[in-house]
């Protein structure tokens, strides 16, 4: 059983294909009476390592300990300033890290993952 094209998107078709070991062919069977409840606000979502809908800062381990910040939509490090542009939350439904300044925007590898630059962009839950 394979997700067609290994594309993790809503309404993606399911097919059969020769086994290839890719993620689109790997599944869990979870019995309905053992399905864990959806994590609520403040609860840890272990698969992604973050608490749900709980604001956090991202602080560089470089000597000056600057905070991850936004200038426009680009991600930079800056001295702590108490602004929303330095706050982030993990959203369970989209599995993305959202900006507290612009909550409809999430961390995004620019150009759909084809560049190394990080920015925030309209949330789409693509792998990037």
């Amino acid at each position: 059983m394979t997700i067609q094209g290994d594309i993790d998107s809503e309404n993606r078709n399911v097919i059969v294909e020769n086994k290839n070991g890719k993620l689109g062919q790997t599944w869990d069977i979870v019995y309905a009476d053992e399905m864990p409840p959806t994590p609520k606000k403040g609860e840890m979502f272990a698969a992604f390592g973050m608490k749900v809908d709980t604001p956090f800062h991202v602080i560089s381990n470089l000597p000056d300990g600057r905070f991850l910040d936004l200038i426009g939509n680009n991600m930079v490090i800056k001295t702590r300033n108490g602004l929303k542009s330095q706050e982030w939350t993990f959203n369970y439904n989209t599995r993305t890290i959202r900006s507290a300044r612009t909550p409809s925007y999430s961390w995004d590898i620019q150009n759909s993952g084809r560049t190394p630059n990080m920015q925030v962009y309209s949330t789409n839950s693509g792998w990037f």
Partner: protein
Amino acid sequence: MNKDWGFKINTPFYVVSQLPDGRFLDLVGNNMLIKTRNGLPSQEWYFDQKTRTIRSQRTKSYAWTIQGNGNSANIAASGSNSEWYQLFKWDAASGSFTNVKNKKVLDVAGGRDAEATNVQVWKKNGSPAQKWKLVYTTDLKIQTKGLNKEFGLEIERPFFIVSKMWMNRVVECVGASNLVMKTLRTTNKGQQFYLDDKTQTIQSFQWKDRSITIQSNGRSNNLYMTTTNARWFQLFRW
């Protein structure tokens, strides 16, 4: 009981291969082959006392018949006439069905223990391909709950099929037909499936007469849900 022929009279039974996978003698079209148990009448037989033939429960006028008026190796089911090539005796001690005239026995072609292997008559050689169990339907012990070891799933226990891709979407049956990936909604029965013990297919918890199927009788790569028939393109192991 007709002791001369070895059968209870007019009492439905299964014919189960003693090859390791224990498939059942089945009637597909008019041909006889071995298949995984599916609970359908095509796998049920009975001894008809009047004609001394073994009849199909699916098509009761049809009896086991060596094709070509007994000149072929193949066995099929066709209209009952009680000619010698339709007459077989059951011997429980040896586990064999033997034709009364040519003494050939019911045999899995090539000894191949695989889904839909043809069944024929062959000179007796004592191999496992020629050994069977006759199980009256009332005696079949059916596991109704717990793990089905062959298919790896708990019987009749609803489950979600959860992708390991990062969004952990689940498979959903949409419109009683197509299978697509959707965000989990635990109350949506279209996202729940279960192993049906009778047919050993994976059925929809919402549309319980439909099973996961490789489309076009297995010739496509698309998966969808359609009416259960328990053929190989509806059988999946976990």
